[in-house]
């Protein structure tokens, strides 16, 4: 039995990562873990872009690679703000658990 790593393998891994991340956002109790789940989703997207560019595109067109780089940068910005918010909320509540963020009705 031969097993070749083709486009569908990458897409499958991407879809699994994305689903894991989506599950983590709703299931994780710690807000840091929720932010990590979001990173997982964004990396699934990156994997998709890179795989599509590699297997479908013309090698000289780098749209997918460039998009992946943009996403990495923006994800870093997002997480920087997110962690800053976690610190500021930790100062008032001494907790990073999503269950404690209930001052506003959810």
């Amino acid at each position, binding site marked *: 039995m031969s097993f070749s790593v083709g486009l569908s393998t990458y897409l499958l891994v991407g879809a699994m990562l994305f689903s894991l991340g989506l599950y983590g956002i709703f299931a994780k109790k710690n807000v840091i873990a929720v932010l990590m789940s979001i990173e997982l989703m964004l990396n699934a997207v990156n994997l998709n872009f890179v795989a599509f560019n590699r297997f*479908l595109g013309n090698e000289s067109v780098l749209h997918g690679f460039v998009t992946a780089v943009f996403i990495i940068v923006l994800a870093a910005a997002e997480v920087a703000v997110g962690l800053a*918010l976690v610190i500021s909320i930790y100062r008032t509540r001494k907790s990073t658990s999503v269950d404690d963020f209930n001052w506003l009705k959810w």
Partner: protein
Amino acid sequence: MQSFDFVALTPEIATAALTLILLAIGMLIPAGARRGMQPLTVFGLLGILGYILYDLFYAKMGPAFQGMYFHDQFADFFKILFLAAALLVVLFSGAYIQKLPAYRGEFYALLVAATLGMMILAGAGDLLTLYVGLELMTISFCILVCYLPNNGGSCEAGLKYLVLGAAASAILLYGISLIYGLTGSTQLAQIASRLGDNLSPSLILATVFLLAGFGFKISLVPFHMWAPDIYEGAPTPVTAYLAMASKAAAFAALIRVYLVTLESQSFAQAGVALLLILAALTMIVGNLMAIPQTNIKRMMAFSSVAQAGYLLVGVIAESNAGVKGVLFYAMIYVFANAGVFAVIAHVEPAQDSDEIKDYAGLARRSPLAAAVLTVSVLSMAGIPPLAGFVGKFYLFSAVMSTGYSWIAFVGFVMSMVSVYYYLSIVRVMYLGEGEGLPEIPVYGAAKFTMLFAMLITVFLGIYPTPLAQMALTAAKSLVR
């Protein structure tokens, strides 16, 4: 690359420069010596607004940067909307910002940065450009939402907005990656030409993901859960700007992506069914959930959910008339919201409460504020002599002419329902006693904003033609 391309970007470059200037002033000049931030922001935004008005009527239009950016009347119309909203917010929030403990300068810089993100969103001709604009807007808003550092509610709202916003962006991006896989491009024009007529399951999946991402930003019903919390927790000027501009920005992108790229293809059938259900749900749930609210900002959140439903009705019409309705309604919604939130931002610090019952007797304590709030909410409800009625008329008549009369009927009935909760505020203000609550006279820039918003709302209700003409020109400029 021609020099023309950079001319097309002039407003964005000017806005970015204004952001950096404000940021530099905020960092270099000590907090005590800083005075002119608000006037500087106002005049900067006015200058950019003036340039775009000139641009709208006289400039040479066309796609710039090989189709990665659109420079057309549609984008210009939305840029005018964002700048007008930002100006109104900056004008009425002066007193509110002065009460913030620290970091006042950065507030204006972030507000202008969010405006820049929206302008990019309105002009984006490439899904990557669109995503960058969306993130610039979202991240700026996250920081703005949690701007009250010692207020736990504000921080919590900011974190919720960030987590849910990032999740929505990730879902949107997954949709974009699927579209890239299907067409080999992220440019809207190329996507439209390469999609062809085959409606594959992956295209449907991609569309649903895109719709979920945009649906979060415009608070369509299954994705609206964030709105009440964030509207309540955020500082009032930020809530106002979220309601007025961020929704309109997401609609600009949605219209561009759907009507230009996807609707022209085989997607039409499946997509319209989905949009119809979402629009009906949004109008029904938004209006019904607004009724039991006791906090005015929470009520306005559900009201804004309902307004997103009305706007979506115009998108469903898929015609110039429908897009014109959306543009017109989004613009008058800015002025109605400016009236409401200017009053909230004025009343909230004086009596430290957003509860509707604390608006009792406002007609006696602050007659102007009560009058402005009344006119604004009646415009949102669509009472005839006011602008909201004309806007709803355009939206619903556009969708009726395409054959989906029932959605217009749902919208009509739900507008009737909305009169109930809007009038409940008016009743409290005019019939309530309000014993022991302070007198709160309005003055300065806040007074100007309230009067201006009210006058525009009344004027456009009586004489909507100029704005309607502008909206129609903008709708026709969309490339199809």
